[in-house]
């Protein structure tokens, strides 16, 4: 389903061994090694708050969102700042790749074998040489996950809006 709508330009990055991508148009900027302030008593995926030129931006650990296990003291150095309806949000990733034009690439729906957390975030898969590129839904990747049922509805409507 999601594969029918392909994005032409993808910003790619790695979290652990996972090669991931989001629509490059959503990416505002990429920052390295931002000092971060912990937010107590919140979802584990909220890794902290960063100061983006006076704006306080939530940094979300993409590994936590995707269910990729990483050591507790592992701090991904890169912040991919993406624009959302609710202001900028920073996604924490281990390293960044380039911008990929997917015009001529085939996009498959996410395989059923992906675990639940991945299924929720991944909209499609591109086959690269010896590598799978997982394309993420920006809105879902940047949310702080609480109840999946309500948030997925939210996103449904948001997705629809994008189509119009």
């Amino acid at each position: 389903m999601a594969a029918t709508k392909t994005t032409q330009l993808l910003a790619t990055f790695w979290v652990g061994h996972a090669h991931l991508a989001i629509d490059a148009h959503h990416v505002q900027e990429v920052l390295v090694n931002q000092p971060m302030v912990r937010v107590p008593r919140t979802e584990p995926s909220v890794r902290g708050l960063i100061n983006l030129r006076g704006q306080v931006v939530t940094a979300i650990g993409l590994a936590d969102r995707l269910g990729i296990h990483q050591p507790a003291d592992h701090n991904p150095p890169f912040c991919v700042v993406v624009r959302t309806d609710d202001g900028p949000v920073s996604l924490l990733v281990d390293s960044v790749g380039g911008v990929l034009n997917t015009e001529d690439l085939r996009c498959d729906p996410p395989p059923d074998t992906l675990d639940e957390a991945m299924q929720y975030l991944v909209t499609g898969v591109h086959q690269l040489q010896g590598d799978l590129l997982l394309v993420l839904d920006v809105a879902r990747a940047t949310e702080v996950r609480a109840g999946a049922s309500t948030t997925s509805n939210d996103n449904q409507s948001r997705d629809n809006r994008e189509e119009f």
Partner: protein
Amino acid sequence: MSDAEDMSEIIAEFLVESRENLDRLDEEFVTLEQDPTSAELLGSIFRTVHTIKGTAAFLDFTRLEQLTHAGENLLSLMRDGAMSLDSTLTTVLLQMVDRVRAILDVVEAEGTDAGMDVAEMSARLIALANGDTGPSPEPTPAARPAETAPAVEAVEEAETAPAVEAVEEAETAPAVEAVEEAETAPAVEAEAPETAAEVEIAAETGDPVDEPGVDTAEAAAHESPGAEISLAELDQLVHELEAAEAPPVLAFVDAPPAPTVAPAPVPPAPAPAAAAGAAPAAPTAEHGADGDKPTGAAGRSSTETSIRVDVALLDRLMNLVSELVLARNQINQNTGSDASAGLQAAAQQLDIVTGDLQQALMETRMQPIGNLWNRLPRMIRDLATQLDKRVSLEMEGSETELDKTLLEAIRDPLTHIIRNAVDHGLEDAAARLAAGKPETGTVSLRARHEGGQVIVEISDDGAGLNLEAIGAKVVDRGLMSAEAVADLSERELANLVFLPGLSTAKAITKVSGRGVGMDVVKRSIDEIGGTIDIQTELGKGTVFTLRIPLTLAIIPALRVRCADERYLIPQLNVLELHRVDPTAPIELVGDTPLYRLRGELLPLLHWSDVLADGPLPAKVWTDKYIVVLEANGRIFGFVVDAVENTEEIVVKPLRAHLKDLDTFAGSTVLGDGSVALILDPIGITRVVDLQAGDEPTRGGEHDQFRIKAGHETVLVCTSGSTRIGFPLDGITRLESIPLTSIEHASGVEVVTYRGRLMRLVRLQSLLPGGGWSGGGGGGFDDMVEAEAARSLLVLVHESDDDVAGIVVDRIIEVSDADPNGSRPGNYPVRVSVLIDGRVTDVIDIEAVVAATRGDTPAMSGAW
């Protein structure tokens, strides 16, 4: 394109302005009802309705025009003295105002009023107008000179001034006003003629005017020097006017920059009014000459000195200034003494200018609370009518200003409280008379600034809250146990109305009483960092006190350090700061840490309770600072590692999905560019409450912070070998008394304590099987222990005329007694309960104190 844009802009402005005017109408109608003869008020009301009508006609909102036209006719009859406002008329006219509001809403949504049905409402207005004026709807003579006199002025102006001015004046002058009269005179027409047609009619109807109104017109003519000018000349003027300007432009002539105030003919209304009231000619003439000045002040408020600004723009400005404040903070921090003199001076200048800018911008956002109160007279009137009560509203301090956002935030809570006051608070007339009160109930609003806050008091002189009923209800609903309720003070009882799901209204009325509301009120006030409190006296009335911060955007805060993290605490909640005194360490009573602050027991909360994730690290209590906080009416000490500084911070709201975090009120960027979280003292107490609820096995942990639900809280101690408990309520303080300070007075051990003589009560002698007579090792050992410590641990029980200290050996914990496992005991034991699975005798403190009061020598022998 741009024309269409212009139009939509004009419409938008029309909507804003009309709504403001309608709000004022509400108020004026209510005032007028009390003083129906006020020509000034009537004039103002008439002008407002007329303005709306005129603009509606100009913008081609025919339904709106039809409705307001009917209303205007009715009003003009009143203004002319043919009718006077009574309560029926007021009600209908207020309904018209509501209808106009509804139409405006539709216009805003759909851009047209075509879908609105105004026939019925208009018909009612027309019927009222006809019904009272009878078969001869001719204008009363009194109105005539009013028309004539100012017209004369206009003509004068026309002669001496350039053409355009003449047009302006003619317009503002009653040329058109005459139209209004003319219209009213023959019959009530449903549709107003086009503007051009109006002018013509004015010219035509101008002639017959001098027939019936000759006397008064002449009278006016004598007083006003220009009055000889005949109506024929007026006629001529009107023709000139027609020739000079195309009719639609007419609307623009008077106020080119603000076309929505188009129906400029409105302004001269006070002149006729004044003349009708047989005012001296001079002021009348002045009115005529200055035409739009007096009304300019009343109608559109000081157009020259103020502009309308979108709040969103102000918000944006505020954000920018916030950024500037942060940049300023950073520059200040990085401009050390090693910086060049030039840089230092510049930094200082930046500091001052930024501060001033911030202040000035805050002021632009400030609005008088009166803006909120304007609607209340109308609301109260409607409520009073609906409930058949007599209510008068008093308002004081309506000029008190607070931030626009906050003003909006308190709108609903305030309305709710006032509705409640009228509905539940005030009794009906019969009950009031029976209670010896004046028949008319009073609701008073008072606002004032106090210490960086706005205090709003809403009081009524009604029946007051029935605290017993509230208590019973709380028990009935299972929100608290009867025992817990019995322990509450009156004030605490009154504040129970803020619990969710509580309404004590006997019957659910249309107005209120569904049991939703007061908790929402409280939550809304909490959300903006305010507090609400109730004081009530049965039969006398109730006072709600709201404390609201002036602004939310930039607040003074205390910067503290917890481990290696920095947090900010709003100064508003900080009562005082203490460094933990090494000689008076924090006492851990069971799990509950308490600190003795000037003899009072202050419950403590360690930062790790609130801010630590994962397993709690071992709490360290030494070498700490206690920030004494007040939140939600509770006072507690928040223990932090260090207190760094106070500073003005810019509150940045947390992203929507982090808003659920009760603990934090927002975030900010500190001077060094790092982000820090702002603690929400109210949220902190909530987090702690939640924890205690989640862990029933450790229920005793946070009793200081919550309403005790059904359990008596007991301080568990040992005395000798016996495990005893004391109801926490009965104990004022814990003290450690050096043995050397103990003296004997007539055989009783006493110590001087805070300037009073405190008796020491030894329980061992009173307890069966324990203590002295039992002689068991425990008593002796403990005695030795106490001796070794060279001090006695004493629970102080204080009453007005007595102070007694109960000696115990050791304090074990503070815990909840489970009433289910209790068994009544014999003196001095009031009840035996199970605490943590162990039998604990709860001492009847009052009985013990009373029994040892007239002390027997036997007591001293206890030692």
